């Protein structure tokens, strides 16, 4: 991706094109799924499962909890398919349901007096730490360092928004119950903060 101002128009144009391809594909799968075709819903799972995983993990769930929450969300979708008519509505519904299911798991864990699992960037205890898995790439390390300095809500928002297409930014922010305008056509507080830190860091560059 180029950061050159001269290519802004072209980049934006192709973003929109890619997003609309994806929407068209999802719309066709949704139609098939609503007609009872299992292939349609399987294709939607393949497309959107990583997004739901990152939503669940961004809500401080452990890996196995996140996997269960994602499954529960898809099972709930079977009951709601008849209400959901557009790919945008589908993505927003899946994100907000995953978030709500994650909230239930967190609430139950806290009610039971158990400690929260390690933060969103952690995996199983025996796995290498994120720092070890990051590798030596300076640009990666810089991004991770600054991203980690954001508050939890900002980290959750940016982690999820990074996975969707631009036309869906507002829907996803709403589904995550972030304030209106936190991201969308304009840069909100979270991205603004991360951007300022990155631009002030000579080890990170946009391209």
């Amino acid at each position: 991706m180029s950061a050159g101002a001269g290519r802004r128009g072209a980049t934006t144009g192709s973003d929109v094109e890619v997003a609309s391809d994806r929407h068209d594909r999802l719309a066709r799968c949704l139609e098939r799924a609503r007609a009872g075709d299992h292939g349609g819903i399987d294709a939607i799972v393949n497309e959107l499962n990583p997004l739901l995983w990152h939503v669940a993990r961004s809500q401080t769930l452990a890996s196995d909890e996140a996997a269960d929450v994602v499954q529960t969300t898809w099972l709930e979708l079977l009951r709601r398919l008849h209400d959901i008519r557009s790919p945008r509505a589908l993505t927003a519904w899946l994100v907000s349901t995953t978030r709500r299911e994650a909230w239930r798991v967190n609430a139950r864990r806290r009610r039971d007096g158990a400690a929260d699992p390690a933060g969103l960037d952690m995996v199983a205890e025996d796995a290498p730490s994120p720092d070890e898995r990051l590798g030596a790439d300076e640009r990666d390390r810089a991004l991770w360092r600054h991203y980690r300095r954001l508050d939890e809500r900002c980290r959750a928002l940016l982690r999820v928004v990074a996975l969707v297409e631009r036309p869906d930014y507002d829907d996803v922010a709403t589904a995550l119950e972030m304030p209106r305008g936190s991201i969308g056509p304009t840069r909100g507080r979270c991205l603004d903060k991360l951007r300022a830190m990155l631009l002030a860091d000579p080890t990170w560059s946009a391209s």
Partner: protein
Amino acid sequence: MNEFLDDVDAAILGHLARLHARLDPPPADLNDRVRFAIALENIDLEVARLGEELLVGSGARAAERVSTVTFESASLTIMVTVTASAAGTVRLDGWLAPAAPLRVELRLRAGGPGGTGGGAVDGGPASGGEVLSVTADEVGRFVFDGVRPGLAQLLVHPIAGGGTTVVTPSLSL
């Protein structure tokens, strides 16, 4: 603040997506597990969420592993104790609350332990997945014995055919 998104923003978000995909990817079998769990014909369903999960640890013999899982839906609680035997099969002892003599199905994914097939329709309605069926007794107790390990899902059907079926997420036996 609140300026329009530009290419630097796109570069930041793109970089963040690639980094998360690498540092915390979904489990390799997550798509398979989801596709197995939702390959159901009956859309009139109620989801039983995973509640408590207890690993009781080894039983009397070291080869015996026991774990207890609870699933809760709006109308029903399903508690299942899973015992792995030395013979390599699994026994499920279940209880329904409130107790009722309901038909309980255990869907098993096609293929051997570990589900190496990975096909999209494993355990789907039209595939070779196996379905075991028992009826709970009047105190809500049911048993599946000699079950091969692998991916499975419980379905509890209403008494008179019609009505809502309670389904669990897939569980690894």
